[in-house]
Structure formats: structure tokens, C-alpha cells
């Protein structure tokens, strides 16, 4: 293997992690890389700095049970390392092996498959090292230094604490990476190509969602940690974040043996993940190479399980065209589905935090939280669609809509809202229905579902008030000022919307006629809104003022 060829291939594969087909030129590799590294490093630094007052207070006066507070703090760093690395690896899921484009371009060159294999492995190693360092290095250096005033850290010494922190967070990241990459290797070996292509996007979406859940549910499992350690339930050993918190205590012992046992379990799990990765990734590579090139491009797409289920929703031909286009684009575009899955996972996590109440470390269900949970998720679903519709699927192909545009702003608005209802609100409410029926009973549960549909439709009208676009056809990103404003509005919006709507729901539950009145009122308001919507603004296919946005003047 010549070093030039290996170096070129490694560089090429590494750059491909940051440039996929959806990014068309623009920023260079370095910019993307630094942005990613900065994004990964910031939470660790901020968390370490936020712990300073607590550490100083404990250094001055070691209060009772402080060891558990410190353990929860260490759990955060392990959880962040595990979740961020896992999320990044799932995000790069399609790039873990060389893809079809790589093989089509590289195969006619005098490059052996072994060289491609070695270079790809090296690029993966560089990616892993970058993620691990960015996620953990600042906190791994900062935290031991600021914790030297603590009694147990003083006793252990700086070197030991540094090693403990680095081992705990580094192993969490390594396990996440190896487990995800090993899982793909296993799937490549076990599944036939057709099944792999079918299952792979679902696994990627589920994996990214799980990683978001594992990070955002940190407050919950952090608060449960002490009571779980006392009860020793077997299922505690299923949470990787606990393992790597325990790994710290192999170096610097804390109270109780339970966490050290979990630490050893973490080491064994990482070793198993490494073995699976080595065996399956290497074996899968050759298989992947052959079948990627020989894959049938022209296999007909399978028909939907429910063909035309929502075809009754749009009325006019233009509306029907936009509606079907939005539905088919979302069904066929993995990047849009991944984006929505991440968005919904955030809402789902906040929902779980609101619905689970802890009494003396024991989890229970809060009745008000149970009412707010679907509303929280609905907020993220509708706002997620609002944002996803603004990412163009194939921007160069929007000429079809442009040459056919004959003043159909009304059709675009109606089709967009119906698409949100069909693809977002109805599936979300249906997914919650079993929980609603189980928790509230069948009558009340069905009433809640109806209420949620109405609330979702009203929310869609509000969030899509100023949306003069055909979904997925216009690259329109708000300026920086807008983004800050939007972030604040969203934070205020989702908390207020969810909890105020939950209160309204409780009030409506008290009397049956109130619910009927709300449903009828919603229908009247929505119909009136549709009529009153200003028809003046035409459908836009380009950014409103590109020259101003380019100069960041908006």
C-alpha cells in the first residue's frame, strides 16, 4: 500500500463525514469540523464551570450525602459523552462503510479493496478520536482540577482523579461508537441486502432518538440513582451511563460496592463491543463492497401498506399535487425523517420528564403531566414540520412548481396544513391513544384524543400563519436575529402551550358539553381563519431577500 494513496483515501473518507450530498459546497471542511468540535466541547466546559460553586461549598463544608451529589455530577459527564458520541455515530450511519458513490468513483482507479478498507478504518479512527477529544478533553482536564478541594479527590491525588475522569468519559464514548458501528457490521452480515436497505433507516432513526432520550432524561435517572443503588434491581445494569459512572469509582472509590461492579460491567461491555466491531465490520466490508456495486438500482418501490389513505383530504388538483408531493417526499427523504425524529424525541423526552414524578426515589405518574405529555409532543411535531418543510429536498427540481404556479397560494396553504395533519398530528395522537385509554379509561381517553387533534390543528394554523411556500421546495433560512428570537419563542411556546392546553383539557374534562363546545369552536375558528387568511402573498420559491441575507443584514 503506497503511503500517498492511503493518505489520499483517508483524507477523502474523513472529509466525506462532513460533506454529504445534502451540503452543496459552501463552507470548507475546516469550518464544519471546528463547528462540530466546538459544539461537542461546549456543554462539558459549561457543566464543569457550573459545578464550581457546588465544589467550593463542599470543600468548605462537607455536607451529609455530598458523595451522591458528586456521583450525579459525574453521571452527567458520562451521559453526555455516551449520548453525544452515540448520536454523532448514528448521524454518520451511512458513512460508517464507504457508500455506493465511493465505490463507483474509486473502483476504476488502481486501488485495492484492502487499501479502501484500511483508509476507511483510519478515517473512522480519526473521527472517533476527534469526537472523544472534543466531547471530553476540556471537562476531563477542568473537572479534576476544580475538584481537588473535595475530600475524596484530595485523598486520591490529581493524577488518579484525572485518570478516573478520562477513563469514565472516554470509555463511555468508545462503547457508544463501537456498539453503533458493530451493530451496523452485524446487520450487514446477517441481513440480506434488500432487508438491510429497508431496516437501516429505521435503526438509524431509532438510534438517534434513543441517544437524545438518554441525554435529556438525565435529570430523571440521576434522581433515581440513589434509591436504585439501595434496591439493587437487575435492570439497573442495563443503563450504560451508570456503568461508566461506576468506572470512575474503580479509580477513586465512592460509597458502596454496587457502582464499582457496574464499572467492571462497563469494561466487559466495551470489550464485547470491540470484539463485535472487529469481527463484523471487517467481515462485513467485503460483503458490503460487492453488494453495494451489484445492488439493483431499478427495483420497483414497494407500494404503501395504506395506499391513498389520505387521498380524500385534498380537494383541488393543485392542492392534491402539493399534498401528495409532501407525503412522498417525507416518505422518501431520510434526512427529513431523521430531522423530524430528532425533533420529536426532544419533545418526547420533555414529556417523560413532565409525566414521571419521583416520590422518595420511586417513579410514579403525574396526572397533570400525563395531560401535558401529548401536548408537548404535538408542539414539537408541528414546529418540527414547520422547520422540516423549509429544508428543500431537491432545490433544483422546484422548476416544476414554478412553471405551473398559477396563483395557487390558497392551494399550497391548504395542502401544507393537511399534510401536517395527516403525517404529524394524526400519527402522534394515534400513538398516544393506548396510553390515554389505559390511564384515563376508554371514554375519557378518546375524548382526549379528539381534544389533541383540535389543539394540534389550531397550533398548525398559528405556526403556519406566515408560510407562503410549497413544502420542501424553498431554501429559506431565517437570519441570525430570527433564530435567536425563534429559540426564545419556542422555549416560551412549548412550555406555555403544553401546560396551558393541559389546564384547558382538565377544565374541559369536568363537563362533557365543554368538550363538545371546544371541538365545534375549533372547527368554526379554523374555517373562519381559512377564509380570513390574506391571499395577497404569492408562493415563494427563493429566499425573500438573498442579497441582504448574504450580508447578514436581515
Amino acid at each position, binding site marked *: 500500500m503506497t503511503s500517498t494513496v492511503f493518505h489520499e483515501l483517508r483524507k*477523502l473518507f474523513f472529509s466525506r463525514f462532513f460533506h454529504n*450530498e445534502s451540503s*452543496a459546497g459552501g463552507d470548507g471542511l475546516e469550518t464544519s469540523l471546528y463547528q462540530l468540535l466546538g459544539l461537542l466541547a461546549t456543554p462539558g466546559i459549561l457543566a464543569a464551570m457550573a459545578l464550581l460553586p457546588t465544589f467550593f461549598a463542599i470543600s468548605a463544608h462537607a455536607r451529609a450525602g455530598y458523595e451522591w451529589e458528586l456521583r450525579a455530577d459525574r453521571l452527567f459527564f458520562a451521559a453526555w459523552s455516551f449520548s453525544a458520541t452515540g448520536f454523532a455515530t448514528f448521524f454518520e450511519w451511512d458513512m460508517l462503510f464507504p457508500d455506493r458513490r465511493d465505490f*463507483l468513483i474509486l473502483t*476504476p482507479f488502481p486501488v485495492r479493496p484492502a487499501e479502501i478498507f484500511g483508509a476507511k478504518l483510519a478515517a473512522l479512527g480519526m473521527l472517533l478520536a476527534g469526537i472523544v477529544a472534543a466531547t471530553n478533553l476540556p471537562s476531563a482536564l477542568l473537572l479534576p482540577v476544580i475538584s481537588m478541594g473535595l475530600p475524596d479527590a484530595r485523598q486520591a491525588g490529581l493524577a488518579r482523579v484525572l485518570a478516573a475522569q478520562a477513563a469514565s468519559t472516554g470509555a463511555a464514548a468508545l462503547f457508544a461508537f463501537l456498539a453503533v458501528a458493530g451493530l451496523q457490521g452485524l446487520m450487514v452480515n446477517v441481513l440480506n441486502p434488500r432487508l438491510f436497505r429497508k431496516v437501516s433507516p429505521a435503526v438509524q432513526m431509532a438510534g438517534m432518538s434513543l441517544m437524545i432520550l438518554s441525554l435529556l432524561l438525565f435529570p430523571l435517572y440521576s434522581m433515581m440513582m440513589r434509591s436504585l443503588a439501595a434496591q439493587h434491581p437487575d435492570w439497573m445494569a442495563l443503563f450504560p451511563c451508570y456503568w461508566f459512572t461506576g468506572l470512575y469509582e474503580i479509580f477513586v472509590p465512592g460509597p458502596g460496592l454496587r457502582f464499582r461492579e457496574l464499572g467492571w460491567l462497563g469494561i466487559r461491555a466495551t470489550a464485547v463491543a470491540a470484539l463485535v466491531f472487529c469481527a463484523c465490520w471487517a467481515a462485513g466490508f467485503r460483503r458490503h463492497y460487492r453488494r453495494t456495486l451489484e445492488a439493483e438500482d431499478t427495483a420497483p418501490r414497494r407500494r404503501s401498506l395504506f395506499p391513498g389513505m389520505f387521498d380524500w383530504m385534498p380537494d383541488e388538483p393543485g392542492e392534491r399535487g402539493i399534498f401528495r408531493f409532501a407525503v412522498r417526499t417525507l416518505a422518501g427523504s431520510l434526512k427529513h425523517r431523521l430531522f423530524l425524529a430528532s425533533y420529536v424525541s426532544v419533545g418526547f423526552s420533555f414529556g417523560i420528564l413532565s409525566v414521571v414524578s419521583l416520590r422518595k426515589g420511586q417513579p410514579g405518574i403525574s396526572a397533570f403531566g400525563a395531560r401535558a405529555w401529548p401536548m408537548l409532543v404535538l408542539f414539537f411535531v408541528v414546529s418540527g414540520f414547520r422547520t422540516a418543510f423549509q429544508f428543500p429536498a431537491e432545490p433544483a427540481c422546484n422548476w416544476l412548481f414554478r412553471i405551473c404556479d398559477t396563483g395557487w397560494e390558497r392551494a399550497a396553504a391548504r395542502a401544507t396544513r393537511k399534510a401536517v395533519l395527516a403525517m404529524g398530528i394524526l400519527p402522534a395522537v394515534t400513538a398516544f391513544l393506548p396510553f390515554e385509554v389505559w390511564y384515563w379509561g376508554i371514554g375519557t381517553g378518546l375524548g382526549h384524543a379528539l381534544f389533541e387533534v383540535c389543539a394540534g390543528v389550531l397550533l398548525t394554523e398559528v405556526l403556519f400563519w406566515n408560510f407562503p411556500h410549497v413544502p420542501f421546495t424553498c431554501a429559506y433560512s431565517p437570519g441570525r436575529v430570527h433564530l435567536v428570537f425563534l429559540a426564545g419563542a419556542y422555549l416560551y411556546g412549548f412550555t406555555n402551550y403544553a401546560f396551558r392546553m393541559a389546564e384547558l383539557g382538565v377544565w374541559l374534562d369536568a363537563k362533557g358539553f365543554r368538550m363538545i363546545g371546544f371541538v365545534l369552536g375549533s372547527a368554526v375558528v379554523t374555517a373562519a381563519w381559512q377564509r380570513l387568511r390574506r391571499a395577497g402573498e404569492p408562493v415563494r420559491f427563493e429566499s425573500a431577500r438573498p442579497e441582504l441575507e448574504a450580508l447578514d443584514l436581515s
Partner: protein
Amino acid sequence: MLEICGLTKRFRSLTVVDNVSFVLRPGEITGYLGPNGSGKSTTVKMLVGLLHPSAGRILFRGRDIREDPAGFKRCLGYVPEEPNLYSYLTGLEYLQLAGRLRGLEEGGINRKANELLELLSLGEARWVPISAYSKGMKQRVLIAAALLHDPDVLIFDEAQSGLDIANGLLFRHLLQALAARGKTILYISHVLELVEKVCSRVIVIYKGRIVADDSVEGMRGLMNLPSLEEIFTQLVQQVDMAGRAGAISALIGAP
């Protein structure tokens, strides 16, 4: 000399290329013709190593290319049908990548790449990402990458697709100049006039099988037809195209 012996490709039960044999000689431009889906690109993909043949052999200078695939690829230049390129690279960066993967000297790569880009009217666009290139510009980058290492065998799969008139003319002269330097050229195209003008020999494939392999003159004489278009229509198109066009016209006028 490149010999293709009994080349066959099956996808499950479907035979796409069926027992295809022909010889490509140095200094000769061989046209490879056939309607869409006849097996042309599949044959080429087997030649360049993108697909493994189900049966048959490819011999280069008398040796099976499977014995030394990298050695064969060092002598091969290929312009694919689809402009598969890393679109975030600039034209120059792509040529540098191609040169390095072919093990060329760094100084030579930069000099040749820059000069090729200039000659192919891409000098000003050399630092622009390929994502911003037109179809014809991408095609010219692929042509430059195929020529960078001065290969002995050249395979052009619809290489003139998207080229403007001037660059189309340049490409035609380039084919002839390369043949004059003794290069072995396989040229796939649907532009029959161009094939007729530049190719010394024409192979016609239909439904995976070779139905004709002769010089253009030889075919004209054999089939007693004046042009390659008529020969091609006679060999592979059994449908009444004028009748079909009339049916389309009638259909779009219907309610």
C-alpha cells in the same frame, strides 16, 4: 489489445449481458451501440471492475485482468455514463485526487491538471466546487481525469453527453488524435452521426447479445443501407416509430 471472451452477467434470473465477445485493438475507435437497457453499460462496468462477470474473461495483452486488476486499471481511462464526482471538491482538487490515486508525481499532476483544465475551457472554474458545475463542465472534468495518466485503454460511456457544440467538436478531434497515438478506444454513444464519423468499427448489442460487429463500411455493404441510423433501426428497432409518435400526439389531445 483487449479481448472480451464470452462475457456474461446475470442478476438473479435475468441475463443482462449474454456471452458477449469482441476484440479492441490499439489505434482503433470501436463504437458500442445499442438501445437503452441492451447491456452496453453493464459490459463496460465489468470491463472497469465495477461489476463481477457471471461468466467469461477479459484479457489485456493476453493476460486475464483478474490476475492483476490494479495493473490493468493503471492502463485504463474511464468516463462513466453518470457524472459520479465528489461535488464538494473543486475541478482541480478532483484531478489532483485522481492523479494521486494513480500514483503520479505531485509536480506532474499539478502541471497536467491545470493545463488540461485550461485546454478544456475550465481554467477559470478550477477553484469552483463541482456542485456548481453544469453537466457539460462535469463531463469535461471526467474526461480530463480519464486522460491525466496517459492510459493505453480508454472507455467513454456517453462522454459527449451535455457538451456544447464547441466542446463536442473538440471531443471528436480528441478521439481521433488519441487513436492516432495508438490508444485502444471503446466509445459508447447514441449519437449515430458522430459514431459514423469517428469509429472505424461498430459493435451493436441488443437484449444482451451482439447482433453486429463490423466496420461501418462493411455494414453498409452487407445490409445494403446508406446510413448507420438505418442499419441500427433495422437491427434493433422493430417498432413503427412514426406510428407510435402519432399515438402519443393523439393521446395528449384526448380529454
